[in-house]
């Protein structure tokens, strides 16, 4: 095989591999979880650093059910935006938990800092107006995953 043919072959194989990865996974690589550094002075009003979350809190897990079932926080409540879920049942379950817990703060977390689901769920909790303040955990699950490092 001559040099030009080798060049074409290497290039072709690289592109093919990338294409197969995309088709198989739906999207290219997902960033690895990272240690979350949180400065409360830089947060938006609806966000909270893990270090500032009090004991008296109700956690809402906005990740997919499969992830919540594996490692959701103890006593956390599932409420996500998965179209396969019965959202009214999730809403009613969350409302009951918020009410029964008597917690003064509800904190919502989803998969990562980039996940927008927790903000939407937090808005929905606020709309219920059941009493507690509602915040979104800065860094999402990444913050919880590395909570012993923070």
């Amino acid at each position, binding site marked *: 095989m001559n040099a030009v043919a080798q*060049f074409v072959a290497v*290039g072709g194989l690289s592109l093919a591999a990338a294409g197969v990865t995309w088709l198989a996974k739906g*999207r*290219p690589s997902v960033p690895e979880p990272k240690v979350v550094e949180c400065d409360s002075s830089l947060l938006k009003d609806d966000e909270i650093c893990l270090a500032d979350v009090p004991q008296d809190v109700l956690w809402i897990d906005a990740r997919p059910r499969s992830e919540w079932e594996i490692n959701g926080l103890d006593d956390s409540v599932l409420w*996500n935006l998965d179209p396969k879920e019965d959202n009214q049942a999730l809403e009613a379950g969350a*409302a009951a938990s918020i009410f029964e817990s*008597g917690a003064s703060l509800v904190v919502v977390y989803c998969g990562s800092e980039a996940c927008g*689901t927790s903000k939407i769920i937090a808005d929905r909790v606020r709309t219920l107006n059941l*009493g*507690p303040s509602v915040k979104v955990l800065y860094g999402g699950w990444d913050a919880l995953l590395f909570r012993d490092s923070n």
Partner: protein
Amino acid sequence: MKFLLTAWLAIATSLAAAPLKFDKTLIEVHAPIDSETVTEDFKFTNIGDTAVVIREADAGCSCISVLVSGGKLAYAPGESGTLRANFSLGSFQGAVDKQINIWLEGDPDEKPSNTVTMRVHIPQVIKITPRTIKWKMGSDPVMQIVEIEMDHEKAIHVTSVSSSNSNFEVKLVTIVNGKKYHVEVTPKITDSPGLSVLRIETNLDIKKHRIQQSFAAISRNIEKK
């Protein structure tokens, strides 16, 4: 061969810098009342001098899937492609903005090269206010009203209203037939905390909107932080 490998590496390295230009960075769409999903295409062109490779396109929500036309990730200068966003409407209502971030090879995780927005207006055909009616523990068990308003070309009738908690009595009152209703809610006693899910069933022929819910609560006094 060494020259060719060097050239290949140089090309691969240069892939990081060149930008994509999207025809539209905001696409606004009004979803039909009965639609389950909305699909929109964002067309783009590589206007840089070098090839680019899309590393990731993500909306940060399981409700949106993002695909690139033909699964093609590498784009030569001047080459165009399409990013297809498929939004599962699920329980969304009102105006919803979903941002899709696009990372090219070489982009840091925290700084995608491009961001496009899909703004979807999802009809709210049955409006319920307030979502929760509340009594303080020990207060007078006075009747409170939940308003139901229909925003649809056809009449929508409330067929039944029920309470999950027997301490709350509910009565449906028709204000304008097919358009506006009241649910009168009265607790029997308020001496202990309690929550009820008020289930409101209608004859709407669109399944995902047909049944609505609101809440009634006799609450402890909770101090907001």
